[in-house]
């Protein structure tokens, strides 16, 4: 407990710790009070996020007048040799934007959840977990050093685990939670490695102080830290090859998917990349790797999104893909970093809007499988309107949020390398394609949920854990779900207009770059090309999915297509990308995408199976060598003592004889010794 002291900064920023303390307090209250708080707990949960949002807004307004980076020392956590690890908050132009995003979207999602989980007996627990998540996420973005960031990083991992498995009575949810946790733990190995190297070689763990000493230290250390942090970011941000947990994470309640697995937590990896930018500038090769991983995930996510058979799964693929954009931008250096933040903010808003719309759809009809949807535009027009706002924003319709942010990334990527730029443009077209498909299959065409109702009623009745009602009836979402959708829709429409031109100047000092803001009407040939590709994507999707019949979905009957034989042979190569190439020739692309590019099977072959084999062999050695060996030793001892016990028979004359014989033997050997 010793050593630390509070240094009270003057003004608002000195009290920033309250934004973390409030949700922690709310979470503790909700989780410790138990059933007592069932009736009003959700309001505490909302306040635990809304109050920090209000504080962040006030802080932001003061910073607008006088932009400056402030560090607030709260406590000296560890002092090891020359390295100090402090509980120190860093409030600068970057972290305040993240704080606003996390608390803003968080508060809206919390309000939404009041209605969404109105009939769930675990609602209070849910709000406790959400507050825990918000606290950890705020610690993550406000931390001044890697160790404190790691604390928040693990906290969001825990909250994510708890919330994915919120309906823990469903086996799929419990397994998905475990999978997400394990894959993130594997990625954390990178983070821990990086911190260890920083302790040993940089002599500091503060973001601003690690690059210079590592540069002086020379050798491979900067590269090792960069690669290790990239591994950590890949896990948290669901980037190739650690992406598959995000698809399963959709087992959680939809507000969780919106907040954690779309808007905030999955961007934590990108935030780490941005904070480590000076470090990555030292090792351009790793920076290229960041961009390449971003591009790969951009395509992998788009593929999965384009083949998804469930609304949430499509959006999960889309999230991967969009976070891929962010990684790409983060790998482009300071200019890209600014636009990564831009797209991160707009994506956080419009993806939350899309997810919450999906939540409204499932709340209304009871399920989210595309096979059973369709024609919802007439039934729930307001949800359709909210979804459309997000849809138009994500595909990059001019003047909406996604247009500006994505355009900037594409142009920065094009400047860095036409290959990356070209991939980013194609990605924009793919985004337009799969989002149009999702929109059409959900809202347009014939209402398949009525036709399939009878057929599925039997199935649903048979499935014990199915939460789909046997006969779909349309419910109308309560107002608490409507309000967040309205706000997020408006932000999706106007957010880009508000941020464009301002953000470059605001974030410039953080990344040490001067950017001339571009006008709202700034169009060049790159913009037109992108718009053309996006239009192409929309047109292709419309032509293909304009009229689908229920029979069209027959090929979807296989829930998860088996791993094709061709993939089997290359699976030992363990590279997801490799096997895609091979698989293309043998099976249809949609089935592969729907199966998440067989990432699970490949990880199973590449990582789980060898470890399982190792475990088996260790268990075998334990049984055969250690256990049988110890067994043999005690058996031998028992045998020897059974023999020697027979000597102790109590007969004095036997003892005398043995004594004599022993002495005789000793004497004889002595004599032989002397004579020899």
């Amino acid at each position, binding site marked *: 407990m010793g050593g630390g002291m509070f240094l009270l900064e003057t003004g608002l920023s000195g009290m920033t710790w309250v934004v973390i303390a409030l949700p922690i307090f709310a979470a503790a209250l909700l989780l410790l009070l138990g059933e007592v708080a069932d009736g009003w707990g959700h309001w505490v949960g909302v306040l635990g996020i809304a109050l920090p949002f209000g504080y962040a807004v006030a802080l932001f307004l003061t910073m607008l007048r006088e932009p400056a980076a402030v560090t607030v020392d709260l406590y000296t956590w560890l002092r090891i040799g020359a390295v100090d690890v402090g509980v120190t908050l860093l409030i600068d132009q970057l972290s305040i934007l993240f704080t606003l995003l996390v608390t803003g979207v968080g508060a809206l999602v919390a309000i939404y959840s009041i209605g969404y989980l109105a009939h769930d007996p675990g609602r209070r627990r849910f709000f406790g977990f959400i507050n825990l998540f918000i606290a950890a996420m705020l610690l993550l973005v406000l931390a001044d050093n890697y160790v404190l960031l790691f604390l928040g990083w693990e906290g969001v991992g825990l909250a994510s685990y708890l919330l994915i498995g919120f309906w823990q009575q469903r086996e799929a949810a419990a397994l998905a939670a475990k999978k997400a946790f394990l894959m993130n733990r594997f990625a954390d190995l990178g983070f821990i490695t990086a911190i260890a190297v920083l302790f040993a070689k940089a002599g500091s763990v503060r973001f601003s102080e690690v690059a210079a000493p590592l540069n002086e230290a020379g050798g491979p250390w900067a590269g090792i830290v960069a690669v290790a942090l990239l591994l950590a970011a890949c896990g948290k941000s669901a980037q190739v090859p650690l992406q598959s947990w995000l698809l399963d994470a959709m087992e959680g309640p939809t507000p969780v998917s919106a907040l954690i697995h779309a808007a905030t937590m999955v961007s934590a990896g990108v935030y780490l990349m941005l904070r480590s930018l000076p470090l990555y500038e030292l090792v351009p090769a790793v920076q290229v790797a960041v961009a390449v991983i971003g591009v790969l995930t951009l395509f992998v996510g788009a593929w999965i999104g384009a083949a998804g058979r469930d609304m949430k799964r499509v959006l999960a693929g889309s999230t991967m893909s969009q976070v891929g954009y962010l990684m790409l931008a983060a790998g482009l250096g300071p200019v890209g970093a600014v636009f990564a933040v831009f797209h991160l903010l707009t994506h956080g808003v419009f993806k939350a809007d899309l997810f919450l719309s999906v939540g409204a759809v499932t709340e209304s009809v009871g399920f989210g499988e595309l096979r059973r949807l369709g024609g919802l535009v007439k039934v729930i027009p307001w949800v359709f309107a909210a979804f459309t706002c997000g849809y138009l924003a994500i595909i990059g319709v001019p003047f909406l949020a996604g247009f500006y942010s994505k355009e900037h990334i594409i142009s920065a990527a094009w400047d860095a390398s036409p290959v990356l730029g070209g991939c980013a443009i194609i990605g924009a077209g793919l985004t337009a394609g799969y989002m149009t498909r999702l929109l059409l299959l959900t809202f347009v065409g014939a209402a398949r949920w009525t036709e399939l109702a009878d057929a599925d009623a039997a199935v649903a009745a048979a499935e014990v854990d199915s939460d789909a009602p046997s006969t779909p009836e349309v419910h109308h979402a309560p107002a608490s779900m409507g309000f967040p959708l309205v706000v997020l829709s408006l932000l999706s429409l106007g957010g880009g207009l508000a941020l464009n031109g301002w953000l470059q100047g605001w974030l410039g000092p953080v990344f040490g770059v001067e950017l001339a803001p571009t006008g709202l009407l700034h169009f060049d040939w790159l913009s037109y090309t992108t718009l053309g590709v996006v239009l192409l994507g929309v047109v292709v999707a419309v032509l293909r999915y304009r009229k689908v019949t229920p029979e069209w979905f027959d090929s979807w009957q296989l829930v998860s297509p088996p791993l094709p034989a061709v993939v089997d042979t290359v699976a030992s190569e363990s590279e997801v990308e490799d096997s895609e190439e091979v698989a293309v020739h043998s099976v249809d692309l949609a089935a592969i995408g729907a199966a998440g590019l067989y990432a699970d099977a490949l990880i199973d072959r590449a990582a789980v199976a060898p470890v399982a084999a190792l475990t088996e062999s260790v268990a075998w050695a334990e049984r055969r060598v250690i256990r049988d060996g110890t067994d043999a030793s005690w058996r031998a001892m028992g045998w020897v003592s059974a023999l020697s016990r027979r000597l102790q028979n*109590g007969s004095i004359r036997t003892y005398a*004889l043995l004594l004599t014989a022993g002495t005789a033997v000793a004497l004889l050997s002595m004599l032989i010794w002397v004579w020899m």
Partner: protein
Amino acid sequence: MSPNAYLIVSAALFCIGLAGVLIRRNAVVMFMCVELMLNAANLALVTFSKVHSELDGQVAAFFTMVVAAAEVVVGLAIIITIFRSKASLSIDDARRMRH
């Protein structure tokens, strides 16, 4: 002086004593045989002491006598106790030292 005659007598005494300990069952006789073996050893000690013209062997012989006397006291006490409880002097009857 040749020690051979003394040593032969000593060896003979020892063998007689040894044979008695191994063969006889009577505790008192066995006890006397042990005394015989001790005295055979004493004789050998004194003989070698004389051969080497040193007193060490004779001193050792005195020690043996003292120890043998003490041993007789303890040994006879044990034998009498065994006789009281078993009403027998046979060493084989004392196989089980428990009730």
